[in-house]
């Protein structure tokens, strides 16, 4: 019994093992290890030869014995139900125009007309574009960049026209350090500053469908193109001529700026913004200052009145010369001067008016001014504005000598010898007609009377 049971067990065990190896499975899912070897993958290439399309399939396991295996596609075909693949070494392919390009197809692996494995595929979803070609790189010195161009046969196709391209480049020394750039056009610009100078680079391109209908896989890489980047010893090295010109220009500008700062006040500003001359100051500069302690001012407040006296006649010249030889009288007392001044002020001056002449001033005592007689007094400078009026008058009218250039304290000094003495001593006529026009003296005794005529005379 025991032996019988063991034998039966062995038989059942062997049956199970044998049935498993034979590939039989009830569920029909073909999940047997042997069926897994028939897994395959396919890709399509549309319009690869004119309007002919290409469908290529291959087993995933290269060790599969494909001696008696065949591939067949059914569905989504024009005017036919199924088409068989052709075999080329380990690859199965079909070249036809009969793809409908709409809907799914079924691709099966057949062993002696028996379907081993099938897969549902859509031809438009497994498109593998053709590899790009004619990759070129041109260096543009003016733009400091590299223009990468390439060609693809899909530009002339009707179905798969829009592709996404991938450009990969690397420096040849550095292995597996690829840089990738995606683009939809067939032209790419690489900036020189992103590449190493004087280095050898390798560049290649591949494509993938980029439409909303056609999908698939990356194409094969294009043939690589090698190019060398130019030498640039110093980044941004300038042309020597341009460098020299720029340096000279810089120094010139700096020199101009320094000179402008230094000479601004003295030379440049007066030329650019000349100051308007002041007529008063100019006039003062033109005229010489007659003597020290002589205040010259155009201030109307400092103008002194011109003393005008009525005179009857002029005494002889000889007497005047005699006065000149005598020493100058001493400085009169201030009280008497004041009184003389007070006496001379006011419009209603008495008829007897003292007349100041250079001659009488030299020879006589100033005390005589108080009496109204002709005397030489210490007279301040008369203002020039009154000079025309002072000069007027004849024998009967008031007459005042204007040629007085005496300052305070000049009484103690001797007058210069070439003092022009041409006029005689005037006498006052008490009965002189007309009202004297006598104006008041300035406030300061020390102020000299200066008139415009004195200016001209001194010049």
């Amino acid at each position, binding site marked *: 019994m025991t032996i019988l049971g063991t034998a039966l067990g062995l038989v059942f065990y062997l049956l199970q093992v044998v049935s498993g190896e034979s590939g039989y499975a009830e569920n029909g899912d073909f999940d047997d290890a042997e069926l897994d070897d028939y897994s395959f993958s396919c890709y399509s290439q549309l319009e690869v030869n004119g309007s002919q399309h290409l469908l290529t399939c291959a087993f995933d396991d290269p060790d599969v014995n494909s001696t008696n295996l065949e591939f067949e596609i059914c569905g989504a075909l024009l005017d036919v139900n199924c088409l068989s693949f052709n075999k080329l070494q380990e690859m199965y392919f079909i070249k036809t125009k009969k793809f409908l390009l709409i809907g799914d197809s079924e691709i099966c692996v057949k062993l002696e007309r028996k379907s081993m494995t099938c897969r549902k595929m859509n031809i438009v979803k497994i498109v593998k574009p053709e590899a790009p070609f004619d990759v070129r790189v041109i260096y543009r010195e003016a733009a400091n960049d590299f223009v990468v161009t390439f060609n693809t046969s899909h530009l002339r196709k009707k179905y798969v026209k829009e592709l996404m391209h991938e450009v990969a480049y690397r420096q040849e020394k550095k292995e597996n350090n690829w840089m990738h750039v995606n683009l939809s056009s067939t032209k790419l610009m690489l900036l020189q500053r992103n590449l190493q100078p004087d280095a050898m680079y390798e560049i290649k391109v591949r494509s993938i469908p980029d*439409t909303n209908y056609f999908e698939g896989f990356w194409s094969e890489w294009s043939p690589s193109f090698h190019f060398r980047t130019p030498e640039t010893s110093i980044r941004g090295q300038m042309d020597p001529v341009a460098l020299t010109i720029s340096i000279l220009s810089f120094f010139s500008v700096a020199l101009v700026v320094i000179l402008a700062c230094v000479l601004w006040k003295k030379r440049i500003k007066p030329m650019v913004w000349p100051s308007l001359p002041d007529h008063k100051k100019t006039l003062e500069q033109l005229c010489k200052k007659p003597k020290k302690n002589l205040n010259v001012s155009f201030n109307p407040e400092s103008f002194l009145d011109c003393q005008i006296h009525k005179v009857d006649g002029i005494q002889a010249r000889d007497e005047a010369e005699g006065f000149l030889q005598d020493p100058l009288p001493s400085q009169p007392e201030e009280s008497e001067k004041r009184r003389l001044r007070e006496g001379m002020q006011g419009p209603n001056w008495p008829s007897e008016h003292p007349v100041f002449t250079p001659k009488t001033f030299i020879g006589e005592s100033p005390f005589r001014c108080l009496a109204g007689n002709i005397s030489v007094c210490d007279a301040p400078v008369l203002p020039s504005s009154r000079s025309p009026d002072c000069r007027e008058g004849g024998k009967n009218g008031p007459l005042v000598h204007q040629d007085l250039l005496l300052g305070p304290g000049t009484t103690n000094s001797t007058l210069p010898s070439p003092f022009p003495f041409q006029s005689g001593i005037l006498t006052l006529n008490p009965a002189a007609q007309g009202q004297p026009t006598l104006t008041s003296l300035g406030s300061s005794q020390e102020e000299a009377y200066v008139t415009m005529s004195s200016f001209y005379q001194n010049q």
Partner: protein
Amino acid sequence: MFHVSFRYIFGIPPLILVLLPVASSDCDIGGKDGRVYQNVLMISIDDLDSMIDFDSNCLNNESNFFKKHSCGDNKEASFLYRAARKLKQFPKMNNSEDFNFHLSRVSQGTLQLLNCSSKEENKSVKEQKKLNDLCFLKILLQKIKTCWNKILRGAKEH
């Protein structure tokens, strides 16, 4: 009992039920997003159009087919179905393989997108008639193209 309202209750609904099949389409169309038409069918239609020599008298030839069938509202799918069936009846040209394949692609592709009832199919079967008129073909292709554009325009608006 015999109020006038009974006429509306019992009269109109049956009328609607009778008329509804006439107004409705027997076909349902797929690919309204336009991807199939723009990437496959339109290319074949344009190639066929370029292959057919243009005749000035073509446009004046108004076939009975077009008098009977048009791409009316809610009838676009039916028209395309009938047009596709008509294309299928067209004989193959011996000297142009590409012409035949494009013709087959348009007809077969259109039919694959349409899902029509058996009633519509029966109608089409009755109209089987061999045609060898390139002028008719040219006009038919233009009508198909116009109808597709109308369908896609309507799909965009919705």
